[in-house]
């Protein structure tokens, strides 16, 4: 399995030119100062918490050879650009920007600081040679969740709390639905959009709205534990999943499993590459196989046979023998998308702006 895909074409050419001009690169650094920009608070128990765990792992791994700094609650927009610039001015050698909305700011600041490396999570723009992007194939984890959801629902109504209607989220919803439907053809999916990454009150409202509709399995694509806290109030009627972090405090129910974002290996590898001089621009998109996406323990609240099926699904995705988007799959409007046996190319997943057939409702636009 290819561990990382190095960019081809223009970007690589630019990079090579830069290498020619600056050979110092290859020598590695004595000490690395690594900066992390977070969209939420490090105590969110989800997305930002996991990135911060990765940052702490870097500190642990390299000790005195690395200094880790971070800034939490940085709004996506003009403020991000300033936070990034100040970090670059403070002498950071590498800066990880851990939310999609930092894309333009990351590229703008990177152009002004060619000697600083920028790593943007979940983005796709690499305007200059010092910008790399990294992401995880969360949709692989959604397939496992979808299977559990389909098997576990008693009302045949499952729910999904979306953050923003961007391809990243839409592909998760599609994967979740496809595998729930495969496990239980009678299943219906309701999607509620929270329009936030982190807002426990809004996330709780979204969960309540779903529960009121009769939904008894909730998956979420937001950062806090609020949806699980709502599910916990229903005395076992509603279950959900840990999102981004294991959220093990809600075990064994309502949290019956989880998707864990495991950024530590990537962060350690990238900072290590700066230290030993092997650093190069990359565009990484790893999943279960690469270890970036982990499936948290499936608890005893799930029957043993369902658990075994879910684990088998996880292992086949991890081994690369099964792709969660394998045809035949139609789009919501009934038009054909993937033919029998065909798998979705990465490019189409990264721009996914449609629901698959069977999901009701529209993607807000």
């Amino acid at each position: 399995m290819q561990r990382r895909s190095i960019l081809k074409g223009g970007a690589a050419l630019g990079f090579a030119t830069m290498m020619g001009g600056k050979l110092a690169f290859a020598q590695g650094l004595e000490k690395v100062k690594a900066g992390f920009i977070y969209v939420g608070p490090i105590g969110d128990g989800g997305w930002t918490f996991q990135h911060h765990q990765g940052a702490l792992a870097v500190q642990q791994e390299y000790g005195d050879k690395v200094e880790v700094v971070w800034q939490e609650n940085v709004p996506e927009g003009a403020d991000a650009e300033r936070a990034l610039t100040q970090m670059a001015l403070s002498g950071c050698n590498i800066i990880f920007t851990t939310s999609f909305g930092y894309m333009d700011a990351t590229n703008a600041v990177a152009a002004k600081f060619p000697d600083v490396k920028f790593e943007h999570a979940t983005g796709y723009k690499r305007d200059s040679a010092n910008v790399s992007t990294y992401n995880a194939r969360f949709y692989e984890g959604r397939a496992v969740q979808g299977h559990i959801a389909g098997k576990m629902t008693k009302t045949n109504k499952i729910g999904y709390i979306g953050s923003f209607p961007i391809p990243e989220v839409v592909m998760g919803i599609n994967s979740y639905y496809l595998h729930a439907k495969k496990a239980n053809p009678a299943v219906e999916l309701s999607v509620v959009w929270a329009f936030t990454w982190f807002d426990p009150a809004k996330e709780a409202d979204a969960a309540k709205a779903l529960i009121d509709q009769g939904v008894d399995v909730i998956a979420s694509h937001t950062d806090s534990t609020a949806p699980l806290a709502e599910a916990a109030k229903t005395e076992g009627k509603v279950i959900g999943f840990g999102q981004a972090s294991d959220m093990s405090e809600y075990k064994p129910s309502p949290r019956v499993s989880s998707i864990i974002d495991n950024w530590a290996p990537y962060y350690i590898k990238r900072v290590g590459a700066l230290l030993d001089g092997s650093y190069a621009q990359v565009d990484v998109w790893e999943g279960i196989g690469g270890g970036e996406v982990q499936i948290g323990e499936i608890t005893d609240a799930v029957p043993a046979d369902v658990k075994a099926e879910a684990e088998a699904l996880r292992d086949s995705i991890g081994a690369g023998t099964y792709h969660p988007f394998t045809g035949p799959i139609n789009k919501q409007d009934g038009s054909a998308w993937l033919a029998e046996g065909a798998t979705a190319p990465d490019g189409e997943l990264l721009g996914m702006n449609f629901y698959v057939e069977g999901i009701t409702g529209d993607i807000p636009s």
Partner: protein
Amino acid sequence: MLRLEKRPSPSRFWQGATPVLAVVLTMIAGGIMFALLGKNPVEAIRTIFWDPLFNAQYASYSRPQLLVKAGPLILIATGLSLGFRAGIWNIGAEGQYIMGAIFGAGVGLALYPVETRLVFPLMIVAGIFGGWLWAMIPAILKTRFRTNEILVSLLLVYVAQNILASMALGLMKNPEGGGFPGSRNLSQIPSMANPELIPGTGLHWGVVAAIIVVIAAYIMLQRHILGFQIKLAGQAPRAARFAGVSPERLTVLCMGISGGLAGLAGLFEVTGPAGQISIDFNTGYGFTAIIVAFLGRLNPLGILLAGLLMALTYIGGELASFTLGLPSAAIQAFQGMLLFFLLAVDLLTNFRIRFGTKKEAV
């Protein structure tokens, strides 16, 4: 024993001194908070107030950023202060700021890709109109139906946020953006951009407008009949009515001016520092401006200084956040303390502190 005695008239000395005292008290209380968090309080305070201005490593970048951050705050706060003086409480500047940006950007995007520089003035007019329109809703509901403008203007912020999200995801979405939310980047379109006017200064049209508005507001309050009416309506509403000031007209005027200026700030932000209509475009300038207005004693020149000070705590706070590892909540608490202490020591303007028991009433 301590006892408060009402002053016959507000103390001019304390009017000027309370903001300074509030800043000093905030530094002390904030320092204690930072110490409790295990950080060196002197270093934290220095990082917040000194480093953005004078630290060799950051100052050349953060000094101009002060203007970028203070510009919209001053623009909005000056508008709000007029209403606040007259007892008209526009709490929804955040929503008017959003609507100004949407209207302004909307005109620009509708004309895209027209390349004449005339597009920008048109967008400015649209931005002011958007903010004005959004402020007219609570103003007219108040004058016609006696609704509470505090509630209506505040709740309209949430309406504006939803319109903003819908614009970013739908009507104004960048057709070349690969399906991602957010409009075209206006700051990269020459005919629509609000660029840095002199490189390295942070000076953009929004900052220029803020300075002009401060001067205009100052002159109006000192010399113009409208300024007199605003002050009179706030200090003695009955006297104002006898003097022929129409409360309805004043409400519409003050709400309109503050809304228009908030819309203007939104327009300059969306064409400059923010660059695009996005779901998270607004970052709370409209609410922070309320603090700035009071910190500046509702006085245009005071607001100018207060806006710069507030910007300093933001930029210094960001610096402290990552150089010292301070949690962002601590920075927000620190900023909150500023308003708290300001309101607390404001007491000194109208009251005198006396020691000893009360003697016979005079």
